[in-house]
């Protein structure tokens, strides 16, 4: 998955609420609302603290869901980042 580093788009504040069937996240600024898994929320919150590389993000994913392996975490991450990037909510970081 290229590029290697990502960050939350500047100007976003995250609000969220957790329920049994997932976490609803509100992106204050652009005004988007999304339903995602707990892992997805952890990843977003990690990105909100600062830019992270793909490997570090996979570490976060695994820490949040110990049962998963690196490959499935990578797959899930690519999917999530792809969606968020398309929506303009995360940006790649140029080296």
């Amino acid at each position: 998955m290229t590029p290697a580093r990502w960050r939350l788009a500047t100007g976003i504040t995250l609000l969220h609420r957790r329920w049994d069937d997932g976490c609803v996240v509100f992106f204050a600024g652009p005004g988007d609302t999304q339903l995602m898994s707990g892992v997805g929320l952890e990843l977003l919150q990690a990105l909100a603290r600062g830019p992270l590389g793909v490997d570090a993000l996979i570490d976060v994913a695994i820490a949040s869901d110990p049962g998963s392996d690196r490959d499935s975490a990578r797959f899930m991450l690519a999917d999530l980042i792809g969606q968020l990037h398309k929506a303009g909510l995360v940006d790649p970081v140029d080296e």
Partner: protein
Amino acid sequence: MIVSDLAPAEIACTLRRGQLMIEIGPFVYRMRSSLPALAERIGSQYADFPLRPAEEFADFHVRVDPPNLLRRWVHANVAFELDGVVPFKPLPRAHAFALLESGLNWCVAQHAHTFLVIHAAVVEKNGCAMLMPAPPGSGKSTLCAGLVNRGWRLLSDELALIAPADGLVAPCPRPVSLKNESIDVMRRFATDATILHTADDTIKGTVAHMKPPADSVQRAAQRVPPAWIMFPRYASGEPSTLRPFGKGRALMSLATNSFNYNITGASGFHTLCAVVERCECLEFVYGDLADALRVFDRLASGTLEPDDILAAS
């Protein structure tokens, strides 16, 4: 003073002069039209609604009339107008009442941003409101009409108004619109409900309107907290089945079905979170209206057994 205190001729005259001021829930509409058939329909469906004096403030100045002189005689179309703005294409004159109803909904959906406005039916029993967000064709209007004929109070069949400050639902009771097969279902099911036809072949098929119960109109100022968010689905022949519905999904559904969630920002998010938090979220499949209503009554009186609500599959 209510609409039925006026003689039909007076209603028509006041409507022609654009001075018919009807109070509907939190809003006062000032109405104008030169169409006699529309005056009669308004007089019938809105008989129990309060009237306001013409000198008072009106929230919306609405008009249903032929769009110009030519259209009065050729093609006989009518258009809905809010204070000079025409949001919809004109419709045939025979659909004037349906057009008016759409227009009244549009006014609220476009302007009432002190509420969170959700496309949902809302009814109330025992001081608690049930929200039924659902896309068209889910049977929510039939359910709504059925519930209202069995002692539930009508808050709205189209627009749930939630006040952000306290999370209460503000009633906005109006004629319940019914389409196609629902019309026959309601005719067989209801006893003294007034149902009036509008013409066939609107875009949605046959459309009719059911007069709201007088009690619902009289209690339009009583706001209540929501206790259930119900996602109904009609499936012919299926037994009534009630299942828990995920709160996260329920919130997303409310957001998608809201007319103004996307402009309320973080405040709207917090309002929806609070609503979802306090409500029991359920999905309901049913094949028989009478049986469905029995389930709803038991839900409202708290007499449903835990295993009546199946685990989410």
